[in-house]
C-alpha cells in the first residue's frame, strides 16, 4: 500500500512537470498575443505561424549552417524581432484606421502566407528538431524528472521575466506602455508612437520564437506544429483576461497542467478529448468570471 502511494505521487509529479512545460509554451505564446493586443488592439492570428517560421530558421541555422543550438537560438530571436518590427511597419501600419474585421483578415492572411512559405521553402513534411536538452531524466527524491521539461520551463520563464523587467525598469519600456495606454498624450510628450507599436510586435515575435523553439523538440518540426499550440495560447490569454501578461502566463500553466492531468488520470479523456474537455472548463470559468482570472478592474476617477 505504501509503495503504491509513493509510486502514484512520483507519477503525479512527473505529469505536473510535463504539464508545466507544455503550459509554459502555451503561456509564452499567449503572452505574445497579449503584448500585441495591449499595444495595438489587434488579435494576431498569425502569432503561431510566425513562431513556426522562425523555428524553421533556427533549424536551418543548425542543420544547414553548422551552428550549435544556443548561438542559433539567439540569432533566431534577433531575426524574429526584426520580422515582427517589419510586419508592423510594412503591413499592419497600412491598416491603422481600418475596421477590426479588416485587420483580423490581414492577420489571417499572414497566417496563410507564413504557413505556405514555410512549406514551400522547407517542405511540409515533419522533421525531428534537436533541442538543447536531453530527454534523459534526473532523479529528485525518487521522482524521475525530464531534463527537457525543466529546460523548457526555465527558458520560457526567463524570457518572460526579462521582458517584464524591460517593461518595468527601462525608459523605453515605460514609453511603450505609455504609448499603449494613451497614444495621443504620449505623442505630445515626444514619443514616436508608431515605432513603439513596431517594437511591441518585435518583442512579441521574439517571444513567440522562444515558444516555437522550445516546443519543436516535443511536437516535431512542421508547418502545422504551432496550430494546436496557438489555440491553447489564445485560451491562455483569454483565461488570464486578455490584457494581463501575468494572467496569460498563469492561464497557460493552468491549461498545460490541467490537460496533462486530465489525459493521465481521467480514463475516458484520451488524446482526442483533451482539447474539448479543456475548453469546456474554460467556457465555464469565463461564465463565472467574464473578465478572465486576472482581468483588471481599472480604478478611475472621472
Amino acid at each position, binding site marked *: 500500500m505504501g509503495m503504491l502511494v509513493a509510486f502514484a505521487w512520483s507519477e503525479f509529479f512527473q505529469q505536473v512537470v510535463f504539464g508545466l512545460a507544455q503550459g509554459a509554451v502555451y503561456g509564452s505564446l499567449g503572452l505574445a498575443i497579449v503584448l500585441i493586443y495591449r499595444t495595438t488592439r489587434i488579435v494576431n492570428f498569425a502569432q503561431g505561424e510566425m513562431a513556426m517560421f522562425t523555428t524553421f530558421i533556427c533549424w536551418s541555422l543548425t542543420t544547414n549552417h553548422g551552428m550549435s543550438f544556443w548561438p542559433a537560438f539567439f540569432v533566431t530571436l534577433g531575426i524574429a524581432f526584426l520580422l515582427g518590427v517589419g510586419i508592423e511597419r510594412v503591413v499592419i501600419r497600412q491598416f491603422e484606421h481600418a475596421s477590426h474585421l479588416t485587420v483580423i483578415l490581414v492577420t489571417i492572411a499572414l497566417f496563410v502566407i507564413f504557413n505556405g512559405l514555410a512549406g514551400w521553402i522547407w517542405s511540409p513534411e515533419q522533421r525531428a528538431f534537436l533541442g538543447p536538452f536531453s530527454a534523459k531524466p534526473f532523479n529528485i527524491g525518487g521522482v524521475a524528472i525530464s531534463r527537457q521539461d525543466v529546460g523548457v520551463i526555465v527558458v520560457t520563464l526567463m524570457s518572460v521575466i526579462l521582458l517584464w523587467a524591460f517593461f518595468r525598469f527601462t*525608459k523605453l519600456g*515605460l*514609453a511603450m*506602455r*505609455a504609448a499603449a*495606454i*494613451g497614444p*495621443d*498624450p*504620449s*505623442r*505630445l*510628450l*515626444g*514619443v*514616436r*508612437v508608431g515605432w513603439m507599436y513596431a517594437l511591441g510586435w518585435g518583442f512579441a515575435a521574439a517571444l513567440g520564437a522562444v515558444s516555437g523553439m522550445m516546443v519543436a523538440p516535443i511536437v516535431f518540426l512542421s508547418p502545422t506544429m504551432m496550430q494546436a499550440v496557438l489555440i491553447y495560447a489564445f485560451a491562455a490569454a483569454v483565461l488570464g483576461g486578455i490584457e494581463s501578461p501575468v494572467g496569460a502566463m498563469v492561464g497557460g500553466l493552468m491549461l498545460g497542467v490541467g490537460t496533462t492531468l486530465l489525459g493521465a488520470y481521467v480514463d475516458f479523456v484520451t488524446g482526442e478529448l483533451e482539447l474539448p474537455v479543456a475548453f469546456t472548463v474554460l467556457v465555464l470559468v469565463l461564465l463565472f468570471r467574464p473578465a478572465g482570472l486576472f482581468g483588471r478592474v*481599472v*480604478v*478611475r*476617477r472621472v
Partner: protein
Amino acid sequence: MPLLELSDVTARYGPSQALHGVSLTVDEGEVVAILGANGAGKTTTLRAVSGTVSRAGRLLLDGKDISRRSAEGVARLGVGHVPEGRGILTELTVWENMRMGAYLRRGRAVRADLERIASEHFPWIDRRRGQQAGTLSGGEQQMLALARALVGRPRLLMLDEPSLGLAPMVVQELFRVVRRLNEEEGLTVLVVEQNANIALEASTRAYVLEVGRVAVEGSSEDLRRHEGVRRSYLGY
C-alpha cells in the same frame, strides 16, 4: 524674432473648418492668454501649434517652420502641450507620468531635475509617487499634467483651460506656480482660458477669438478695461 509666430493659420476637423486665419505671436518670456467663447477656436489654435489637428498657414517656432511637423516632432522642438482633458496616463503611477514628462531629455542631470521640480513646486507629488494616476482628483491630475510638462523643460508651455472643473483654490494655486516659473525662470506660456478674469490677471498680453478669428488683441491690462471684452467675457 518672436518664439512663436502664427500667421493666417487655418485648421479643420474633417469637413468643418475651425480656424479661419488666426495670426498671433508669443515672445520669449511672455505669458499670453487666448480668450473666447465655446467653439471660438481656442483649443484648436493650440492643437494647430502642437500638430494634433490638420492645419495650414504659416506656423513658426523660433523661426523654424512647424506647419508640416507631426505632434511628436513639435514636442521634440520643445513645445509642452497640456491638452484639453489633461492627457494623464491614468494606468501609470504618478512618478511614471513624471518620468514620461522627461522622455525627450538625456543625461545624468534629468533625475535630479525631476526631484527638484517635484519637491520645490509640487510637494504632494513627491509623497504620492507610487499612486496610480487615474485615482487622483481632477485638481491633482491637472497639477500633475502641469508638473509633467515642466519636467520636459519646454521652451513654450501651452495650457488648455487649466481651470476647467477645478475649485477656485486649486486654480489659484496652479496659476501661482505658472507665474512663479515665468518670473523666476523666464518660462514662456500660451494659455487658453474661458475664465477671462484669471487669464487676464495672469498674462501680459491676450487675444480674443471669435468664430475662428482674432477679434481683439492687446495688453492684458488694456483688455480688462476694454468695453466689449468686459461685457462679453468679464461679466460686469
